[in-house]
């Protein structure tokens, strides 16, 4: 028997030998907690037994290639298992090398497999063959489609109709590529979905800290306060959920505000279900408690708040001391007692007091988060985020371990090969004067703004975006799409059918997550990382020694990826370079030739990602090869309180420090490798740039706000006509009880299900099987009052412009007096579309078997009489035969109700966000009502739009300096200072 020592030496020697080869010796949890992942050195040839061959032990060999999920904005890391024999992706699992998701995924990641093999997906460019929305399609070549589109864009640019080109994006899933394309074209045509999503929360954060996203450090927190169902859904929810659980496991207390007993609420130590919109009242009561009891971080507040600015502007009669400010603050918030909060919210004052004590005890380890939820639902919802972050800035839990970071400090956007200048013109269709403080484009108002401005769009791209379904008032979108005077050419870039694509002129097939390139970096914790989405077959083929020059060579059908598409389209717009566009899409290595994606990404990885070249070299790889192999790279951990960093002497030249401590310098801004968007506060009168703030005698980086500090008092809001909202304030929602009729209730329509994601996951059979319906949550007390006998009974929900018919789900899991209906559901295809298959090319090959996605889209009849629209289901979803045998096993028929069609627009006058909550009447369905019926009046929707427009304070009447918008605020594309000037109203506005 060998001695223990000898055995130990034997293992040790084997370990040394293995590690000398650069391989991992202990591959299990003995060395690595991610025991379930294949060791990375075997990703080229990984062997698994074929589960379908069981009980036979049939081995399958795989190449493992990383990419990132494209279903939600978290973009978690995926590993594609590509069969070496068939060169097909067999499954997707988590990528353990991804610093954000750390190898873990929600259901939507692995379901990418369904999406790439969906038998109903669009594989070839299609052109409308009849009238818009008529359902007839003809397959065309990429060349034909691109030449047509490019010709129209070129003409618009040459004729100085640049604002007639618009690109409307859903969740981008990439950091800035397309913005730069539009900038290269000189077009202010970027239109995001953000004002139906997160711009309200962004406003709340940006008015505080300059940056518009929170980056909570949940894992290190002592108290985690969520105004959302963030453990199960939402931006970055999987990476955040992991860290919330890490925090909980380390003893953190979880507080959840949610009107529903969501899965998140079930994990909470304290679950508060407040009256919708009353959240700020509770938060201010907690803040007031901290102030009253002195349990706030005085030193942090003194150093980092812009209290001097407040005192100078609003309390000039008082001494400009911190103590005087503290006294004023206590006085201002004294009215927010626990009792007031209880009256507004319906939550017991004792519970609020308990939560207040928890918050007070958290110190700088208070991690909070709000993104959509209450912020997205209510008039003044941006104050939800502002009042929530108030707690962080009071406790000093900002950029602290366990606190909340400004997102840009936990994010890295590598500088690309070209950075074109921003466009010269202002687009009023996206940035109208009525909303000068809108955080993002007023995208959901487009049909109304097109009418108001009598506008025409020559080319309108919808990019993996479905406004007909997603936005409120979808019937107005259909009316707009059908009107050729408004939309010259609608190009839908999409991997699959959508309600919007039905009304397009071209449908161009885009890739899913394993079929496209993107680079991104998100604030999933206190770290900085970049991740790389890539066409996995391209990576695999290259590993097998082939050269790929165009992603269509490896993608299914003629599915393309966007970056190559934009490069190609830009060349066709400006083939000879005379417009100055082509230069931004040319190779630097081989001037005069087209820029390729390899060169584009290699440049970023080689020049702008610190540490990556060295790490790659250590493995004998180029930076691009490294990213193609591992898919992600962590640049830094624990970025810390950047605001406290002293500004280096070389940046301090001819410095002027003003009365409130702002330090301005004549030194030029040093070139940065990280080009994450940062606001640009104004320079001083002599042209010095704001470089930091003086704190206790040292110039420190501070925050990118006009004051350089955290702005409890927003001079921007004061200057632009909203002085009464300049401090964190409670605004009563449009669904506050005092604004409702006796028979009305708030409808919560925004909540997500963990296994769906708007319409993007609609062509994933596993997800559809898990979640395909959206009953109306209603409390038993309300059900009884309304005579709704049992779950499943049909009810009619009446909004301001129409109604929908849905099944009731009677549950105590919702606050009494409130109803809720989930997002994602009620997908449909018009009968006309359902009847027509797309015809094949002249060569006889077919395009698609069917128009529409049959796993999740019911067939409906659309009727319109003078703006009074009706939608009625004519055929449910049912089993069908296809190349996927599972489609013959579809057992569900009900795919829910498309409630958003019955919602008018509710633009918040400050943030510009659509306020999603609806005041509705709920009653039993009428005779003749059928499940899924929708009725809405687009003329009435205009009246509601006008009513909300009356709440706005236009730049024309409130701009302090004759500009359209505060220049310092973030904007995806930022035209030059001249374009910010308001046009003379007496002159016609040239688009």
């Amino acid at each position: 028997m060998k001695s223990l020592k000898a055995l130990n030496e034997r293992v040790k020697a084997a370990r040394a030998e293995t590690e000398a080869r650069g391989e991992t010796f202990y591959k299990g949890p003995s060395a690595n907690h991610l025991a379930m992942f294949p060791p990375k050195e075997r990703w080229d040839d990984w062997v698994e037994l074929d589960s379908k061959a069981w009980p036979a032990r049939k081995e399958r060999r795989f190449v493992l290639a990383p990419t990132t999920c494209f279903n939600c904005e978290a973009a978690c890391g995926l590993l594609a298992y590509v069969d070496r024999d068939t060169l097909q992706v067999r499954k997707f699992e988590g990528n353990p090398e991804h610093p954000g998701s750390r190898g873990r995924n929600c259901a939507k990641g692995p379901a990418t497999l369904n999406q790439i093999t969906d038998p109903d997906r669009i594989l070839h460019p299609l052109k409308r063959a009849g009238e818009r929305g008529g359902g007839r399609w003809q397959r065309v070549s990429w060349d034909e489609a691109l030449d047509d589109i490019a010709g129209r864009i070129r003409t618009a640019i040459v004729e100085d109709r640049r604002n007639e080109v618009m690109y409307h994006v859903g969740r981008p899933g990439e950091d800035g590529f397309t913005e730069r394309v539009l900038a290269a074209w000189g077009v202010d045509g970027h239109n995001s979905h953000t004002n139906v999503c997160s711009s309200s929360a962004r406003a709340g954060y940006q008015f505080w800290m300059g940056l518009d996203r929170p980056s909570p450090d949940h894992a290190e927190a002592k108290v985690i306060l969520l105004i959302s169902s963030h453990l199960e859904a939402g931006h970055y929810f999987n990476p955040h959920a992991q860290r919330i659980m890490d925090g909980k496991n380390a003893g953190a207390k979880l507080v959840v505000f949610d009107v529903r007993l969501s899965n998140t609420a079930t994990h909470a130590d304290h679950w508060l279900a407040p009256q919708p919109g009353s959240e700020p009242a509770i938060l201010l009561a907690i803040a007031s408690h901290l102030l009253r009891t002195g349990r706030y971080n005085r030193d942090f507040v003194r150093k980092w708040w812009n209290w001097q600015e407040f005192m100078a502007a609003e309390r000039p009669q008082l001494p400009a001391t911190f103590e005087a400010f503290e006294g004023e603050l206590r006085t201002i918030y004294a009215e927010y007692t626990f009792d007031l909060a209880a009256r507004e919210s319906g939550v017991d004052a004792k519970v609020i007091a308990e939560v207040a004590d928890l918050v007070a005890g958290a110190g700088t380890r208070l991690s909070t988060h709000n993104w959509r939820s209450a912020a997205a639902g209510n008039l003044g919802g941006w104050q939800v985020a502002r009042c929530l972050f108030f707690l962080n800035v009071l406790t000093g839990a900002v950029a602290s371990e366990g606190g909340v970071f400004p997102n840009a400090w936990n994010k890295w956007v590598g500088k690309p090969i070209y950075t074109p200048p921003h466009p010269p013109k202002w687009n009023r269709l996206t940035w109208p004067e009525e909303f000068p403080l809108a955080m993002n484009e007023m995208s959901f108002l487009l049909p109304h703004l097109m009418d108001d401005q009598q506008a025409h769009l020559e080319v309108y791209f919808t990019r993996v975006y479905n406004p007909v379904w997603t936005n409120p008032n979808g019937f107005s979108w259909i009316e707009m799409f059908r009107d050729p005077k408004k939309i010259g050419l609608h190009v839908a870039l999409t991997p699959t059918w959508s309600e919007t694509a039905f009304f397009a002129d071209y449908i161009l097939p885009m890739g899913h997550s394993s079929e496209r390139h993107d680079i991104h970096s998100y604030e999933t914790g206190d770290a900085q990382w970049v991740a790389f989405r890539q066409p996995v077959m391209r990576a695999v083929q290259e590993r097998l020694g082939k050269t790929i020059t165009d992603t269509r060579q490896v993608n299914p059908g003629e599915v393309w990826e966007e970056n190559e598409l934009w490069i190609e389209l830009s060349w066709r717009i400006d083939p000879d370079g005379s417009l100055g566009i082509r230069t931004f899409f040319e190779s630097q290595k081989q001037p005069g030739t087209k820029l390729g994606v390899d060169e584009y990404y290699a440049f970023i990885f080689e020049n702008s990602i610190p540490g990556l070249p060295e790490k790659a070299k250590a493995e004998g790889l180029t930076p691009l090869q490294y990213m193609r192999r591992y898919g992600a790279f962590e640049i830094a951990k624990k970025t810390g309180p950047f605001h406290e960093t002293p500004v280096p002497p070389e940046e301090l030249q001819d410095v002027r420090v003003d009365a409130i401590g702002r330090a301005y310098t004549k030194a030029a801004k040093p070139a940065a490798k990280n080009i994450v968007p940062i606001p640009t506060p104004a320079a001083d009168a002599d042209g010095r740039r704001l470089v930091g703030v003086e704190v206790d005698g040292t110039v420190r980086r501070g925050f990118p706000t006009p004051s350089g500090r955290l702005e409890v008092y927003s001079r921007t809001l004061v200057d632009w006509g909203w002085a009464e909202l300049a401090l964190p304030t409670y605004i009563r929602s449009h669904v506050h009880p005092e604004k409702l009729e006796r028979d009305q209730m708030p409808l919560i329509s925004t909540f997500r299900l963990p296994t769906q994601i708007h319409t993007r996951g609609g062509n994933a059979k596993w997800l559809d099987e898990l979640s395909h319906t959206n009953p109306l949550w209603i409390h038993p007390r309300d059900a009884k009052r309304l005579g709704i006998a049992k779950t499943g009974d049909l009810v009619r929900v009446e909004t301001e412009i129409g109604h929908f018919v849905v099944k009731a789900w009677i549950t105590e899991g919702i606050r009494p007096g409130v109803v809720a209906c989930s997002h994602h559901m009620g997908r449909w295809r018009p009968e006309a579309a359902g009847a027509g298959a797309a015809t094949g090319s002249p060569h006889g090959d077919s395009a698609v078997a069917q128009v529409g996605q049959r796993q999740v889209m019911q067939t409906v009849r659309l009727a319109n009489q003078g703006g009074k629209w009706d939608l009625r289901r004519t055929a449910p979803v049912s089993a069908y035969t296809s190349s996927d045998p599972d489609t013959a096993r579809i057992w569900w028929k009900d795919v829910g109700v498309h409630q958003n069609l019955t919602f008018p627009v509710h633009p918040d006058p400050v943030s510009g966000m659509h306020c999603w909550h609806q005041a509705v009447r709920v009653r039993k369905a009428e005779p003749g009502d059928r499940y899924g019926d929708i009725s809405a009046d687009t003329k009435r929707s205009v009246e509601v739009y006008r009513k909300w427009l009356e709440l706005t304070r236009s730049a024309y009447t409130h701009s302090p300096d004759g500009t359209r918008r505060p220049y310092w605020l973030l904007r995806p594309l930022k035209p030059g200072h001249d374009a910010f000037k308001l046009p003379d109203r007496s002159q016609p506005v040239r688009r």
Partner: protein
Amino acid sequence: MIDLFRALAAVVEAEGPERERMARLLELPPASDDAARTELFDMHLYPRAAVYLGPEGMLGGEALDRIAGFWRAAGLEPPTEPDHLGALLTAYAALAEREEAAEGARRALATQARSALLWEHLASWLPVYLAAVDRLGAEHDRAWARLLGRALIAEAERSPGAALSAHLVAAPGLADPREEGGAKFLASLLAPARAGFILTRIDLARGAAKMGLGLRQGERRYALESLFGQDGPRTLRWLRDEARAAGKRHERLPGAYGAVRDHWRTRAEASAALLASAALAGSREG
């Protein structure tokens, strides 16, 4: 011994070729087939400390919390299953590495942490557990258990334990069915730290065959309940014999285990006495 412990951990936690590679290095016989291995470690002898140290005899619970607390106190990040034998052995190796690399007071602290892990969370249950694997496992598993047993004894001799593990001190004895009722009695029988012996499904099958009773399919508690239902006194007597046999086995454990050995032996003997008394009372009543 660092790599020896890591390799022994890898054998119990890894699958397929990885496990075979480690087994070869340790000169163990080829691994048993996957089904037999799954049955042993997933159905009968779960390699998780909380099952053998906790008063519930189940996964998780206070014992798991205590072990996770140890990881944190030692400055190690607790994995998903901090009480998994693979994780514990790895932690032991990590602490040994830390000890080797440190000097002075830090080294003394690392030594203390390693010793605490050994006596609190490893040697407190492994002698009994490994004996069960040796009793029930296939050739490869038995060889692994013996090798780990040798390594553990070597460590125990190198670093003798001062006090009995807090897990064992805290675990109450077998519940008396006459005082605490049948449900608590059954639960305590299936908690090794309380009963003083491990009762697997294989043992129950053997017992049922020996007694001529039917073994119901289902979890152990259900099967045990059924045996009592069929013939309570005989089942009590059989359990008494099991406890006595276990006490004798524990008595033969190496002296290096000291107080741990004595605890398991006395606990098994106390259980045997209680079972005998209950059987006697039952037969009188019957």
